[in-house]
C-alpha cells in the first residue's frame, strides 16, 4: 500500500471551490448585518417591554405591583444587555485566532466557564429584588374572597415554585461550569506534559 501520508495529501476533495475576496467581503457584510439584526431584535424586545409596562402603569392596572414590575423589567434589560455583551464578536475573536490551539481552546473554555459560574450574579440576582418584592406583596395581600388557609397555601406554592425554578437554573449553570472545569484541568495537564 502507498504511504498513508501520500494517500492523505492526495485525497480528492469535492470542495474544489474558489473562495474569492469578494465572497469574503460579502461574508463580512453578512456578519455585520446579522449583528445589526440581532441587536435590533433585542432593542425591539426591550422597548416593547418598557412601552407595555409604562402603559399598564399609566392605566393604573395593579398599582401594588408597579415598582416590583419595573424592577423585573430593568432586570430583563440588564440580562439582555449581558447576553449581547457576552456573545458579541464571539464568532471569530480576531486577536486570538492566530494563537496556538491549546491556548485558544483554553481561552474559549475559560470564557464559557466564567460566564456560567458567574451566572448567578448576572442572570439570577438581577431578578431577585423584583421577584421577592412581588412575592412579599402577594403574601400580605390577603384577598377577601379567599379563605386564610387557601391563601397561605397559595403563597407557599408561589414561594416554593420560585425557589424550585431558580434553584434549577442555578444548578444547571453550576453543573455546566463544573464540566468545563474538568476539561480545563485536562488541558492544563496537557500543557504541563
Amino acid at each position, binding site marked *: 500500500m502507498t*504511504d*498513508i501520508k501520500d*494517500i*492523505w495529501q492526495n485525497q480528492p476533495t469535492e470542495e474544489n471551490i474558489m473562495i474569492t475576496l469578494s465572497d469574503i467581503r460579502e461574508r463580512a457584510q453578512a456578519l455585520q448585518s446579522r449583528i445589526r439584526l440581532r441587536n435590533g431584535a433585542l432593542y425591539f424586545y426591550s422597548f416593547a417591554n418598557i412601552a407595555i409596562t409604562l402603559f399598564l402603569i399609566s392605566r393604573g392596572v395593579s398599582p401594588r405591583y408597579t415598582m416590583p414590575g419595573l424592577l423585573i423589567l430593568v432586570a430583563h434589560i440588564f440580562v439582555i444587555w449581558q447576553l449581547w455583551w457576552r456573545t458579541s464578536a464571539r464568532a*471569530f475573536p480576531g486577536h486570538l485566532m492566530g494563537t496556538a490551539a491549546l491556548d485558544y481552546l483554553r481561552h474559549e473554555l475559560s470564557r464559557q466557564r466564567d460566564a456560567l459560574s458567574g451566572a448567578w450574579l448576572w442572570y439570577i440576582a438581577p431578578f431577585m429584588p423584583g421577584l421577592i418584592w412581588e412575592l412579599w406583596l402577594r403574601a400580605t395581600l390577603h384577598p377577601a374572597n379567599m379563605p386564610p388557609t387557601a391563601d397561605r397555601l397559595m403563597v407557599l406554592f408561589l414561594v416554593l415554585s420560585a425557589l424550585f425554578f431558580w434553584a434549577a437554573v442555578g444548578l444547571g449553570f453550576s453543573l455546566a461550569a463544573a464540566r468545563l472545569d474538568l476539561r480545563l484541568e485536562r488541558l492544563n495537564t496537557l*500543557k504541563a506534559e
Partner: protein
Amino acid sequence: MDTTRQDQFYLRAVAEFGPALNRLARTYEADASQRLDLLQDMHFALWRSFAGFSEQCSLRTWVYRVAHNVGISKRVRRRRGGLASLEELTDAPAQGSPEDDTHVARALDRLRQLIRALKPPDDQVMLLYLEDMDAQAIGEITGLSARAVATRIHRIKALLARDFGQGASP
C-alpha cells in the same frame, strides 16, 4: 495593516494551503453542506486574522493555527461527547483488517473516522502528522511541548501500523 496587505496575505495563504484547508474541513465535518460552511468560516477567519498578522511566526503556522481554531470552536459549540484520546484508541481493538484498506477511499474514510473520534488536541496532532509536519511545527501550532507531540506521534504510528498495516514514514 491596510486592506491590500491583508488581502495579499490571504491570497498567498489560499494559494499555498487551500487544499490543506479543504482536507481539514472534510475531516472535521462529515456533512457536505456543513462542510462548505466550515470551509467558508475558515477562509473568513483567515482573512480577518491577517489584519493582525505581524509575521511573528511563519505563514504556514499561522494558517494552520487559525484553521484549527475555527475547527475547535465548532467542536466546542457542538459539545459532542464520547471522544477518545490517542491512548484509548490505540488500546481499543482494531476495526477491520489491513487487507480491507487496499482501497484508497476506504482507507481515507477510516482515517477521517479515527480523527473525528479523537479529542482535541490529539485530533489536530494526527491531522498535522498526516500533512507531513514535523514535531516542532506541530508543537508551534497546537501549543503542545515537543515531548508531548513526540509521544502522540509514537501512538499515531502504532495506530496506523495496526489499522493500515504499515509504518507511516516519519
